[in-house]
């Protein structure tokens, strides 16, 4: 009966193509949305990784080393650096700021770290800032080494370019010395938001806690959590639409073929063979749509002004979910096929 199912698909080719293309667009949008939600994490991860740290030491009770930080004086920096297991420690500071871009301003996230690290990312062009008046900026700003840039109320000299460094939905990152950031955001007060460390401290002074890199990434992601949740909801809705499209195509096909099924049953074809044919149709529609969806997603992703990184698991799970969707969607059609009375084959046309 698989032959009959395949021939039926050829017979109804136009409808099949419409179903495959519609479902593929849905799958592509789902992939892009999944990539979008994943993009937030990827850019946060890249930023944290670029700092070359193993963990962050923050005040006990603080939510994180960056946006959820509780600023504190670096009085205990030397004690932390001297703890067993700590290879290196650096005073770090983070603050939201703005950069003048022509007549307008755009938001940016500023990080302060010692010139030679740890905590200072490597540059693709130029060097790391060494004085409070210098800054290394993300390449997404499109600026060049040697230019001046107005950051907040200060004018700084660009000395380095950090490749594709962004956070919070493609917002550019800029890197200053720790003193530079304190002058920019804390009115010159010697305040930091965390102590970046290399190594694993065996213990910490009272009133401090360690935050690992994963928690650091989550801290950077916190402001976009609601957006990620919303995108995920839309993605789930799209999956449901895909189920409905595949399901309606298979159901309509089953309705139109009830007489064929009745004939099959009347001539002794087991019901399970008929069902296998219908399920095969659904799975083929879903799989073809998945393949086309992956191709479409590659074309759609660059159109988005944000980072779209479709995770590998999405590509692997898409065909699997597509098969599950196909089978689920064909349930209604299967029920009709099982219930068909072979006596329907008798009688006039």
């Amino acid at each position: 009966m698989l032959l009959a199912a395949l021939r039926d698909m050829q017979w109804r080719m136009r409808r099949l193509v419409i179903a495959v293309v519609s479902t593929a667009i849905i799958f592509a949008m789902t992939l892009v949305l999944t990539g979008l939600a994943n993009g937030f994490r990827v850019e946060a991860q890249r930023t944290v990784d670029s700092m070359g740290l193993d963990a962050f030491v923050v005040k006990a009770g603080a939510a994180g080393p960056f946006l959820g930080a509780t600023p504190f004086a670096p009085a205990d920096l030397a004690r932390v650096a001297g703890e067993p297991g700590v290879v290196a420690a650096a005073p770090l500071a983070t603050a939201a700021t703005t950069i003048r871009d022509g007549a307008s301003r755009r938001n940016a996230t500023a990080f302060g770290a010692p010139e030679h690290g740890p905590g200072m990312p490597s540059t693709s062009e130029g060097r790391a800032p060494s004085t409070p008046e210098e800054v290394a900026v993300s390449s997404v700003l499109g600026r060049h080494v040697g230019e001046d840039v107005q950051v907040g109320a200060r004018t700084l000299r660009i000395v380095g370019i950090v490749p594709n460094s962004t956070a919070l939905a493609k917002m550019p990152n800029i890197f200053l010395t720790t003193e530079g950031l304190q002058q920019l955001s804390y009115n010159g007060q010697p305040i930091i938001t965390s102590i970046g460390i290399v190594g694993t401290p065996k213990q910490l002074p009272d009133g401090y806690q360690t935050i690992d890199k994963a928690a650091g990434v989550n801290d950077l992601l916190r402001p976009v959590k609601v957006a990620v949740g919303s995108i995920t909801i839309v993605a789930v809705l799209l999956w449901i639409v895909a189920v409905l499209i595949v399901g309606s195509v298979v159901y309509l096909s089953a309705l139109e073929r009830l007489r064929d099924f009745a004939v099959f049953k009347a001539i002794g074809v087991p019901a399970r063979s008929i069902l296998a044919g219908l399920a095969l149709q659904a799975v083929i529609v879903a799989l073809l749509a998945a393949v086309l969806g992956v191709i479409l997603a590659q074309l759609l992703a660059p159109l988005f002004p944000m980072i779209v990184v479709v995770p590998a698991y999405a590509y692997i799970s898409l065909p699997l979910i597509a098969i599950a969707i196909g089978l689920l969607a064909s349930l209604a059609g299967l029920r009709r096929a099982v219930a068909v009375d072979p006596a329907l084959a008798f009688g006039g046309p």
Partner: protein
Amino acid sequence: MGDLSIKDLVVEYSSGGYALRPINGLNLDVPAGSLVILLGPSGCGKTTLLSCLGGILRPKSGQITFDDLDITALDGSALAKYRRDKVGIVFQAFNLVSSLTALENVMIPMRAAGMSRADSRERAEELLTRVNLEDRLKHRPGDLSGGQQQRVAVARAIALDPPLILADEPTAHLDFIQVEEVLRLIRSLAQGDRVVVVATHDSRILPLADRVVELRPEVATTNRPPETVRLKAGEVLFEQSTMGDLIYVVSEGELDIVRELANGGEELVKIAGPGDYFGEMGVLFHIPRSATVRSRTDATVVGYTAQAFRERLGVSGLGELIEHRELASN
């Protein structure tokens, strides 16, 4: 071996909540190697009987035995196996799968029976050659004439060489040239031990048959004097789904006219009293009684043939009788 035997077959189904018995106590014995024609008008139960023979419809009671196999006792997969291995069906509307070629349509039962693709293709080609369609193998049903489609359907029916072939109105949608081809083909199927059962309302094809079974035998229509019938309370005058040739007029007492329901109950249609008449539609149109009549009290009724009743009613045309005109008092 290969004999077909039907004993006391009763088929009942529900129509609008009423119990209908298109087949009511049928007995039939068909020896192997015969071609039987089931003859009768629409609705007389021809297709119903074919469905029972094909293991598609379960009768209410009775027994169908074919090739020493009690079909009415089969269930589930045994029934599907019986349909596949023992029965070939030629449907009235051809019922070919429109997306498949002639060759693929014939291959279906063989593939379902587990035959390899190559073997089933070879056998399908042989069969289509046998029905003179060797140059139409790759054509879809829509590109074939009615007669060609019917020949493909016949080839499909005999694909697994079943000992029982059922054909439902095989000539219904064919012109006379196509009918000729199909009749020859069907006649040729009744060879060896094979039994071929053809249901039709077309009496022109009767010469084809070794045996003709009239599913609704004509009841005697000769005019005869009125019959007086005396009934005790509770006695049944006639039953729903039976044939009869008398129209009854109530002389004394009361009778219940009831319809049997599919759920086993009854619905009172009317209480007939003196001067009322009933049973005219079945007699006039040669259709089964649509209700059961049972006396409510001790009663006397007079049965008239259609002609005698018309004279008694004093009408000239059928119209007034069909409209159930009041009976003139004597």
